[in-house]
């Protein structure tokens, strides 16, 4: 998917993550800030990249501000932000690319 405009999903509450996607043209430019970066930075990065790849997002600036979210939450926030950037808020592909 193409990132058509800046979009955001999630909150800064404990155990959540706020994910922002913006249009980009030079691959994935990912920045991660996390309250649990030391112990889970590697996994957060892997989860976000895997989710973007599943959604076929190849060019984007992605900012994650994580407050200790579980992987399932991170995935959901990334998916939501990507679809919002395409103004898709209904008829989402549940069971398709959204697993």
């Amino acid at each position, binding site marked *: 998917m193409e990132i058509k405009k800046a979009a955001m999903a999630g909150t800064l509450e*404990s*155990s959540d993550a706020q994910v922002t996607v913006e249009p980009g043209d030079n691959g994935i430019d990912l920045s991660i800030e996390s*309250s*649990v*970066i*030391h*112990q*889970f*930075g*590697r*996994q957060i*990065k892997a989860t976000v990249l895997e989710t973007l790849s599943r959604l076929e997002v190849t060019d984007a600036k992605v900012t994650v501000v994580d*407050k*200790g*979210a*579980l*992987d399932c939450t991170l995935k959901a926030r990334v998916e939501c932000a990507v679809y919002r950037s395409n103004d898709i808020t209904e008829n989402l592909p549940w069971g398709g690319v959204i697993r």
Partner: protein
Amino acid sequence: MINAVGREIPEEILKITGKEPYQGAKAKDNYEFTRGAAKIHAMVDPARSKVVESIRGALEKCGIKDGMTISFHHHFREGDYVVNMVMEEIHKMGIKDLSICATSLGKAHDPIVPMIEDGTVTSIRSSGVRGKIGEAISSGKLKNLAIMCSHGGRVRAVESGEVHIDIAFIGAPSADEYGNLKANGGKSNCGVLSYAMADAQYADKVVAITDTLVPFPNVPASISMTNVDYVVVVDEIGNPAKIATGAAKPTTDMRKLRMADYCTQFVINTPYFKNGFSYQTGVGGASIASTISLAQEMEKRGIRMGFGVGGLTTPMCDLLERGLVDVLVDTQDFDLGAVESIQKHPDRHIEISASEYANPFNKGAYVNKLDFVILAALEVDINFNCNVVVGSDGVITGAQGGHPDTAAGAKCTIVIAPLLQGRIPAVCTNVTTVTTPGETVDVIITDYGIAINPKRQDLVECMKNTKLPIRTIEELRDMAYAIVGEPDPVQFGDRVVGIIEGRDGTIMDVVREIKPYEFKD
């Protein structure tokens, strides 16, 4: 060298500190030594006054100079003004290279950080540090190694002469002009002065700082005039609202209530739960809830507690009110209820010294007589080692307190920890830093189940006919990792910034400098 909890203690650190690696909880039993001693200036002339107009004046009379060791107590907790008042004057005088030997330091002492940065303070020994001092130490700003010691370990260091205090500053809620100090009877009452008692005896100079001067004699005194050189009267020694807070509301958190229930069920199914048993617990929500539910079982079964040890809170003092405990022995009061209780029941709520409480190097301390202690922990690993000092970000953020002392002494040491705090698992393969050795920890209670240390087959046997969810510690860890993933070890820099001192003075672990997280690809 690898110590008895499997931690690598660099040779260089052993050399700098002159310390041995930790060799086991009972390795120093029967250890022989000669106690340290204070240098005394005799008070022969009855006409001489101890009252000094200002802190500055007292510092000058004590002959403060570069390189000295000064001490403080933490009974005023986050409401303390004494440390900052004294340090501000010392800073103004341009004194450098001081060692602070505190019983504990908290967020209230954030103003010390610039004095660490400019070399006024170059060594710190404390039960722990919170807030910005912790960050400063973990960022490598303190020139020398920080020593994190248990309450028993600190008083051991003072009494054995390992640490020699040049000047002790003792905040006293009430004092007379000759230095009889009480923990009550003033504006900022803290209940007891237990942690300051060894300092009063072993420091060369003792300065009492009070905001309430009362007629002589201020008795019964927690600290006697026989040990006090000077008395300074200031406007305020602390913020009463932060010294003794209102009693914490009983928790309504279902996870904590479940853990409290598991804890009570565990306790009553051990052979130690019988008339005259002894018990200590902390201030966490689950600990307080378990005290409340244990009281119900005691009433139901007609079982009385012989003595309770604290760090006390209102729920423990309620046991006294209800006649469920014979005596409380007290080293610190965490809320108003506890401060009031010691004044109301001077016959059964007794102030004890830190040495009586937990010193491994005297001729016997209360912790050795404990049946149960209920503790908390940031992390517990599959060897039952606990970490209560270093946070999941690698920063020093807590205090040993009496954790290792009570764990070593009690017949049944129970650690309560929710399996997950956000994404951080409380049960893990390897704790970031060992503060309390697993050989002294018997039971881990989480909201997902209970693990018993395999060396306590007697306790395993006791729980066979209960409905408690007994798991192995590895099973608890695996449950946690299945939900949050397996955590990576914290990335530290190379430099050692502090040591975790075992209660017997050996090195339990080292704490390294933090560094920014790096992605490794």
